[in-house]
């Protein structure tokens, strides 16, 4: 069943291109550090060197290898993205499903809460929380980001479920003696699966961008390296004015390439799953 659902995706050029780029970066993040075995935190006397055979992407002010940093950065940025997306997806699904299925007071309360979170400028709250924490691990950043990007998803899931629940095939399944659990697994989940998958991609995107924004203003993870922290260091050391392009260009390209291709993937999915947008 899911095979049939996702098959048409692979006919979309956009989807293939987007997916290839993302997969490339995922592989880079996973295997890069294993193949290019240079410690990204090790300081050497080769300071602010342009790319050379010893340092393929040059070094920063402390003589740390940029390529090694980049590979670790891609890894942790994707990690933040996935983790934040997972958190948002779980919260959004639970809130949305409960609202739709329970209705009544539960729905009213959950939706009021959702609306409050939705209208609160999330990046401000994230900044507030991050600035209170002296030590911020990568996971912590992911949790902070994940806690604030779910509301629109919860609302969308609720709306979709509400409409599905009044559809006749749901009645017919109920009349065939389906219990709640079976109904959810067979009829409800497939209907929201494509949408959830699409949102998941957007959430990853939000996670990566969010991490980069927090890092740029100095509120990123205090431990470990991410694409955001590389950019932050380069900005701090005035790399742009001083023309140390090898320091800030590669992480910039990586962020743009990953987030852009994630957006392409989600647009492609939208076109495939939403017949109204199909080009025919």
């Amino acid at each position, binding site marked *: 069943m899911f095979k*049939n659902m996702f098959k048409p995706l692979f006919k979309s050029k956009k989807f293939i291109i987007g997916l290839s780029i993302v997969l490339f970066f995922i592989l880079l993040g996973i295997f890069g550090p294993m193949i290019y075995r240079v410690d990204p935190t090790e300081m050497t006397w080769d300071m602010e060197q342009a790319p050379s055979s010893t340092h393929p992407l040059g070094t920063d002010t402390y003589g740390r290898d940029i390529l090694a940093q980049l590979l670790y950065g891609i890894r942790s940025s994707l990690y933040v993205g996935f983790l934040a997306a997972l958190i948002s997806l779980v919260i959004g699904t639970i809130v949305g499903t409960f609202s739709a299925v329970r209705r009544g007071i539960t729905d009213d309360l959950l939706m009021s809460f959702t609306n409050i979170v939705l209208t609160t400028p999330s990046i401000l709250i994230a900044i507030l929380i991050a600035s209170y924490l002296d030590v911020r691990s990568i996971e912590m950043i992911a949790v902070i980001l994940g806690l604030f990007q779910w509301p629109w998803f919860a609302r969308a899931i609720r709306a979709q479920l509400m409409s599905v629940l009044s*559809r*006749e*095939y749901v*009645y017919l399944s109920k009349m*065939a003696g389906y219990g709640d659990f079976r109904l959810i697994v067979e*009829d409800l989940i*497939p209907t929201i699966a494509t949408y959830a998958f699409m949102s998941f991609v957007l959430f990853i995107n939000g996670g990566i961008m969010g991490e980069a924004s927090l890092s740029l203003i100095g509120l990123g993870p205090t431990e470990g390296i991410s694409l955001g922290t590389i950019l932050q260091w380069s900005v701090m050391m005035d790399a742009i004015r001083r023309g140390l392009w090898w320091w800030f260009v590669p992480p910039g390209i990586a962020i743009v390439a990953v987030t852009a291709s994630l957006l392409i993937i989600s647009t492609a999915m939208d076109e495939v799953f939403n017949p109204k947008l199909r080009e025919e």
Partner: protein
Amino acid sequence: MSRLVVKNLSKVFSIGFLARRNVEAVKNISFEVKEKEIISLVGESGSGKSTTAKMLLRLIHPTSGKIVFEGKDIWNDIKTNQELKEFRRNLHAVFQDPFASFNPFYPVERTMWQAFRLMDKEYSKNEALELIKDSLVKVGLDPKDILGKYPHQISGGQKQRIMIARCWLLKPKFIIADEPTSMIDASSRGGIIKLLLKLREEQGTSIMFITHDLGLAYYVSDRILVMKEGRIVEDGNPDDVVLNPQHEYTKILVGSIPKLYRKLEDI
């Protein structure tokens, strides 16, 4: 003996959070349906006819009143799973929109496989498949054209026939047909109606049509109930209701429907 007895049935929906508002969808209706009888509940959208259908199908809980099917109060006397299964098998439905009656993620025969969950006897997969094929043939479909197809690959008329094939499998004693012909083309409408009538002839099924189409109700029913704003305003045999309506609303309704063999005088 009456197969279905509905007594003082009401449904009130309450909506809104802080300022709750009550909407009375069905107001204190009572009627009975006999064995093999075809009865039509006629009304416009918002008249409460669909809400009534859902209560009879045990899909939504009535606010007050009783629904007794085959001697059992469907909300109070059905306690075990076995009893519920029997009820679901015996009182079944065909819905209005053949497009919404099928989950787009599954092949269309899923709806027929579901029927086996309600049966007492266990069937092997092959036996079940044979039964499915038989019932498809009964409703005038070629199993080859249907099995393995997804809902978007077959026509509305075919979908509605599959729904009736599901009823052939279950052999219910009572079918609620909620606007079964309103979304399909006129030329295939007759076929659907005939299939339902055949079911009654061969199985003694009672059928309740839920419709806004007085023409359909007049043609198929033994009795017509006209609903307006949650109340039954007229109850009688089709000829009386159509040719000699009593209630003001029925008079207006009958007088507004364009006819084929006579011209409306006042337009």
